[in-house]
């Protein structure tokens, strides 16, 4: 197993830049998520790690060795494709032994190794079956098996659960995570599903338009997004933005939203102009005595909680409140924002302003 280090990685397809200057490190044994909307460059980044695309510039280190320009066959990594890409003309066992035979392993040793991995994945009974008739879950397991048999330095997975039914995804995600924990293998996992990323990942990189927006552990990214894009991409419903124009002083611990005065974590950076105050729905409380006013326009019942949409003069705010709280649509209400969990963004650049609360996550740069 190995550490993977990406430095200033860039990929151009003609005039289109798929990835521009990515830098991050995947530590040994980590379950690492590459998260972003489609077209953000996450798959291209993964394919460059695998050697299926050669980078335009930048370096990729696997286990300290620079492999950026090496062909895939010499990198000793395994790749799990979204559509599994099981060889249709081979049965399950042959599919799994295929990577071993390429290394010159004898058929007997290869079969023994395949049997061992099949036991681990619970697919021993289908080894002689053709891959054509398998269920989605079994295909997924075979694809994993084909990756595991070789004991590669790292597993690269391109939306491996994307082709499964919603119901089954959950189950497979758990299985995958359990498998990772047992083997301790470095895994890089591409997904556009923020829930999947937070649920499974040790660390997440959020990408957008070929740029790494943020890199860190799921909770840090969720609580202290580095940009408005990250704030919106993670969480369902996403973070609310209250947009206004004015002055946020460096060192200030409150800001003005019209008449209302909102307490915020002490700022380390100031701004004069358009800003957005970001707050997660679970940090908004309906409180008639609060100075920030709005009108309830909709409620959405979700079992234990409900999502209440409130229109304010700074934009709509969704609040997650207990479902036993009585809420009447088309009535006025006050909104209390939890002062410990607020972020202020520069509305023009989308960047989060550093404060006492988030500076540890965003770093000092």
């Amino acid at each position, binding site marked *: 197993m190995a550490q993977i280090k990406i430095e200033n990685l860039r990929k151009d397809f003609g005039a289109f830049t798929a990835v521009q200057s990515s830098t991050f490190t995947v530590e040994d044994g980590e379950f690492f998520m590459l998260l972003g909307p489609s077209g953000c460059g996450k798959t291209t980044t993964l394919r460059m790690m695998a050697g299926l695309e050669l980078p335009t510039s930048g370096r990729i280190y696997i286990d300290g060795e620079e492999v950026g320009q090496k062909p895939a*066959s010499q990198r000793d*990594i395994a790749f799990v*494709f979204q559509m599994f890409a099981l060889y249709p*003309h081979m049965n399950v066992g042959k599919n799994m032994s295929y990577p071993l035979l390429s290394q010159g392993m004898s058929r007997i040793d290869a079969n023994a190794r395949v049997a061992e991995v099949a036991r681990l994945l619970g697919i021993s009974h289908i080894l002689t079956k053709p891959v054509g008739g398998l269920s989605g879950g079994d295909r997924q397991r075979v694809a994993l098996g084909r990756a595991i048999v070789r004991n590669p330095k790292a597993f690269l997975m391109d939306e491996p659960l994307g082709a499964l039914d919603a119901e089954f995804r959950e189950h497979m995600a758990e299985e995958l995570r359990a498998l990772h924990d047992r083997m301790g293998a470095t895994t890089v996992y591409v997904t556009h599903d923020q829930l999947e990323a937070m649920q499974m990942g040790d660390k997440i990189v959020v990408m957008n338009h070929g740029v790494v927006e943020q890199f860190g552990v799921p909770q840090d990214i969720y609580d202290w997004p580095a940009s408005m894009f990250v704030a919106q991409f993670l969480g369902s419903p996403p973070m609310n933005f209250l947009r206004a124009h004015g002055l946020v002083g460096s060192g200030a611990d409150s800001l003005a939203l019209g008449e209302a005065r909102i307490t915020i974590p002490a700022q380390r950076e100031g701004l004069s102009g358009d800003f957005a105050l970001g707050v997660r729905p679970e940090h908004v409380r309906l409180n008639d005595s609060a100075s920030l006013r709005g009108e309830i326009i909709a409620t959405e019942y979700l079992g234990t909680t409900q999502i209440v949409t409130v229109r304010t003069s700074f934009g709509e705010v969704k609040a997650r409140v207990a479902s036993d709280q009585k809420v009447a649509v088309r009535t006025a209400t006050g909104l209390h924002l939890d002062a410990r969990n607020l972020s202020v963004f520069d509305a023009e650049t989308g960047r989060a302003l550093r404060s006492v609360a988030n500076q540890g996550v965003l770093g000092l740069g």
Partner: protein
Amino acid sequence: MSYSVSDPSRRTKWIAGIAVTLYAVITILPLLWIIATGFKSPADSIAYPPKIFFEPTLEGYVNLFTTRTRVNPEEMAALPEAQTWYEQIVRDQGQIIAGPSRYGERFLNSVIIGFGSTFLCMILGTAAAYAFSRFRVPLKEDLLFFILSTRMMPPIAVAIPIFLMFRNLGLNDTHLGMILLYTAVNLSLSVWLLKGFIDEIPIEYEEAALIDGYTRFQAFIKVVLPQAATGIASTAIFCLIFAWNEYAFAVLLTSGTAQTAPPFIPTIIGVGGKDWPAVAAGASIFLIPVMVFTILLRKHLLRGITFGAVRK
């Protein structure tokens, strides 16, 4: 009332059945006529009105494989008893066998040239189609169009230049020349057909093989080819049928050593007038290899024609 979009009604099935049968009869009738003529006597073969029921004889087949001379009845009487059944058939016509005919050689030429060009065409076509399908080839679209444009006129339109070229290169009347010619004519269609088939194979399979530690060439041989087998088989049938049946170039460019069966069959002249049963026998035997080849690959051919229409 139950109604189904996908299941045709009884009446539709009947009409379809009748139409297909009618078409089959129309197509097969000339073929049956040729095969029947091969077993007729020369007199029956040109009888008018045509005979549907006749006494079958192997005269045509014997005549196809032999050359014969006519002898006087006195000389015939002086000869010893015929040794074999076919010698007897020849003597019944008042002739004796002078030697074997050239049909066997011509047939072998057809096999060598037909299968040789098909084989070469498949190798070159698959390689070119793979490259067009997978690599960033400069001017790809233009090249593909250029390749196809060679089929926009009948090949015989360039017969004269090809004839002159072959004479200068010493390819006239050689197996190699004919193999190269048929390969060149078939290649454009092959590249287009095969590119379509290879396009349908997801690139992930090769990428998986690359990551599993194989080179691109190994991935091509072990992963792409097995999956393109259907396309290769159906393309091969088209190529073989063209090369096998080609007549005009064969007449023009071959006369002796490399002559194929199609130009040879019409030249079978009997003693005293065209020997139609022998000609028909020659045509019947000529059908067999393509029929066998097509039947062997029939499953692939059907799948090949409908390939890509429905995603599994």
